């Protein structure tokens, strides 16, 4: 919608990167998400990461599925080509794009609904293929855009705005990806830009599929019954569903966790998450110990954060396929067409 285009004002004093661009040159349209939505903080971190990496915006291809999270590519890298695909199929579209043009930098944004339900199969297979891309899951445990149903990453015991309780074990995308042999796995928190930006930078430079799971609270629908700030009380006896259209104003939650440290962060709804940052000297290249570490923290009721795993000799999809170095979409037709003489020859076997 035109009225939400962000005004482009030049600030001559802003710092520039190696390309002479300012961070503002990496921005996009104005966000249309809820005030205080974690996804907006992730957008800010993405902007900072690509700015600091001196990426030429138009050499980035940004992709997403459908959901509030999947809207965010509109809000960064206005000068990059974008593809807001259909729900859950983005990993496949990215794989096709990468096969056609292996030279671009692929940046995919998805949600826990988009990635862990309808798109789960595609995500798993993109991991197996090792498509070279940053694959960001903005993980809030709910379907934000369709108003708060549980996603597959919702914790057991979580209650929805309507009061039902989730009884299914959550899928931890990091744990799952490690099982599937992912070549890069990291976790961040939307409110901790300090540690998220370096993760994103590392992921964007990884030669393979880089899964970054970002815990990104939904101010509108992360709502526990025990919470003092719960909306449940007001709506308990309301007769009409239409009364539930109020999203109270909220501020973004921020909290930085130091290496090796653990920090309890309170969410909009009063619940807490124990974030555990990997310690200094942590070895992210040993899949074995990484899997153990992640599961151990899980058992301790903590969420392991940081750059958790990198496969040293990661071989990305195109290498695996054995395709030529140049992007296939740039090969001149003359190199692709065998010509009429060859056609005659080929037909000998059909005689």
């Amino acid at each position, binding site marked *: 919608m035109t009225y939400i285009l962000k005004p482009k004002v030049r600030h001559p004093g802003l710092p520039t990167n190696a390309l002479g661009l300012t961070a503002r040159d990496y921005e996009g349209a104005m966000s249309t998400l809820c005030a205080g939505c974690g996804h907006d903080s992730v957008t800010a971190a993405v902007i900072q990461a690509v700015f600091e990496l001196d990426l030429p915006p138009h050499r980035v291809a940004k992709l997403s599925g459908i959901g509030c999270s999947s809207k965010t590519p509109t809000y960064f890298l206005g000068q990059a080509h974008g593809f807001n*695909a259909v729900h859950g199929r983005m990993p496949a*579209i990215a*794989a096709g794009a990468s096969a*056609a*043009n292996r030279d671009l930098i692929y940046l995919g944004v998805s949600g826990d609904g988009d990635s862990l339900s309808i798109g789960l199969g595609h995500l798993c297979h993109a991991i197996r293929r090792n498509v070279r891309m940053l694959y960001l899951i903005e993980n809030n445990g709910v379907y934000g855009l369709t108003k708060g149903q549980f996603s597959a990453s919702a914790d057991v015991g979580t209650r929805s705005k309507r009061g039902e309780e989730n009884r299914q074990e959550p899928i931890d995308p990091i744990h799952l990806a490690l099982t599937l042999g992912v070549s890069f796995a990291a976790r961040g928190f939307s409110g901790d830009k300090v540690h998220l930006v370096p993760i994103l930078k590392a992921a964007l430079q990884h030669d393979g599929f880089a899964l970054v799971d970002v815990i990104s609270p939904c101010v509108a629908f992360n709502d526990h019954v025990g919470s003092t700030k719960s909306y449940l009380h007001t709506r308990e006896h309301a007769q009409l569903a239409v009364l539930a259209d109020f999203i109270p104003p909220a501020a973004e939650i921020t909290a930085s966790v130091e290496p090796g440290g653990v920090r309890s962060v309170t969410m909009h709804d009063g619940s807490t998450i124990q974030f555990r940052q990997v310690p200094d000297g942590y070895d992210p290249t040993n899949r074995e110990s990484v899997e153990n570490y992640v599961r151990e923290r899980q058992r301790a009721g903590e969420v392991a954060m940081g750059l958790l795993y990198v496969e040293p000799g990661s071989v990305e999809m195109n290498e695996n*396929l054995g*395709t*030529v170095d140049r992007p296939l979409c740039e090969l001149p037709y003359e190199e692709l067409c065998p010509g009429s003489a*060859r056609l005659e020859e080929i037909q000998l076997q*059909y005689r």
Partner: protein
Amino acid sequence: MSSDSHSRVNNFAFKIATVNGSGSASANALIRRAIFRMGVPVSGKNLFPSNIQGLPTWYEIRVNADGHTARIPTFDLMVAMNPATYARDVDEVRSGGWVLHDSSWPLPTNLLRDDLHFLGVPLARLCNENFAGARERILMKNIAYAGVLAALLGLDAEIVQKLLGETYAKKKSLLDSNYKALGLGYDTAIDTLECPLPIRVEPMDATGDSIIMDGNSAAALGCVYAGATVAAWYPITPSTSMIDAFQAFCGKLRKEEETDRSRVAILQAEDELAAAGMVVGANWMGARAFTATSGPGISLMSEIIGLAYYAEIPAVFFDIQRAGPSTGMPTRTQQGDLMLCAYASHGDTKHILLIPSDPEECFYFAVKAFDLAERFQTPVFVLSDLDIGMNDWLVPRLRWDDSYRPDRGKVLDAEDLETIDHFQRYLDVDADGIAARTLPGVHPKGAFFTRGSGHNKHGAYTEDADEYVDVMERLRRKIDSAALHVPSAEIRTARGASIGIISAGGCHRAVLESIDSLAPRGIAVDYLRVRAFPFSHEISSFLGAHERVFVVEQNRDGQLANLLSLETGVPRDSLESLGTFGGLPLSAQDVVEGVLDALGSAAYPKLPPRRANA
């Protein structure tokens, strides 16, 4: 035995009944190729079960000097190698015909029809005596019956041997066994049977500029020549062999010599939804990308087809149709996906279809499909079917014009973008319904946000009714205008014809043959073969010019007739549907009987029943 009375030299059909997984395909191909090399028009149709080993399978070969190669449902000779199907196999032989069987064991007496000639050769015994090991005995029995056939049909033994030699050129030991088995069969036949039969092959010069090819190989080759660089697929019969062929061709034709690296990416996807997504992703980047699938795959791809339509991304879909609905009969042919492909996906959509009638057209239409997809920035479907795709068709040799260059449609390159002020993705600058696109990575000014959600002509997100309608109306104009650019219909007129036949795709040869056989009965027919959708104007003219129009197609509901009615405005009831949909390729007899039935006049006597004295 009246049908013996006229010469059956170079004009007969025979069928080989075996069990699948037994290696008979090579023997069958050998015979079919030998006849071809003798210059005689021939075609081969494979009827196989949806399993891998141990169930009945058949190969039908038709030899016809006039070049008629449609299926015929009765046979002059049955090579009855499968005891499990003796009964139905013997039943399919015309009165006066022959049955070749393995006389290592006696034939069940209840199957002995007294109007047939039973020819016994102890194939199993011969092979057991001459070869060691179960594996070789099974394999060589096939070559042995090929040897018998060569003798019975009067094939040129030198040609047969040469063919074997070509096939096993680099595998001397195999060649020797094959020579031996061939000789066993051939010699026994010459010694014990009356060779050749009245149905036999005599050399001609009618195949010099032809090849025998299956449509899937031809379509795959077309993709190579079109410059396709990405194929994404999920295995499904009968489309799998198209990707197999593409892979095989690319292995030879798309290697970068210095590095042995590949100028193509073939992605086996996790499912059809992913395959379609990959094709869309690759085309978005500017590669020519396609998928090959069959009905169930198109159903699964529906959502992404709609995305490509609305976001205007080129994409080529080969639908090698099989008998539906649902899983249906995966190894039987049908034309059941016309309506689905024409309007696939929810909301208002319409798609370009190309409908090849044989492998030759599969090749040319494959190339055309990419040109149209890029020109119109939209999904294009090539609607082939199992019969065209997997059977062996006699077609003119494929030609290539080396001056061909892909039509990339309206793509702004870096230079174009330098000169423009502001790129607007969906702006119809020259009023032809097509807006220029840009490719990612080419130039910062070309960047925009592709989406399947509501967008206006500038390429921005919208929920505004007028802006939305504006784009949708242009899309309608765009696809409709493709009617002028798709292959036009093929029309054959007959003097004095008042009835017309319209058909499409794999029905073509049966229809042509039926027209030839209706003519002597005084029934002159004009014929139009639809080759693409949206329909070009000559289709409306043809409909308008004929009082009575039969639409010949291979599905239950008359889907081509439906499309014709919807899109040209002729009343649906004015189109009379003909055809079969049981999964077997159409025969001329089906069409002739259908027309005669419909005309209903005693003046046109029915064809004699298949088997007079059954």
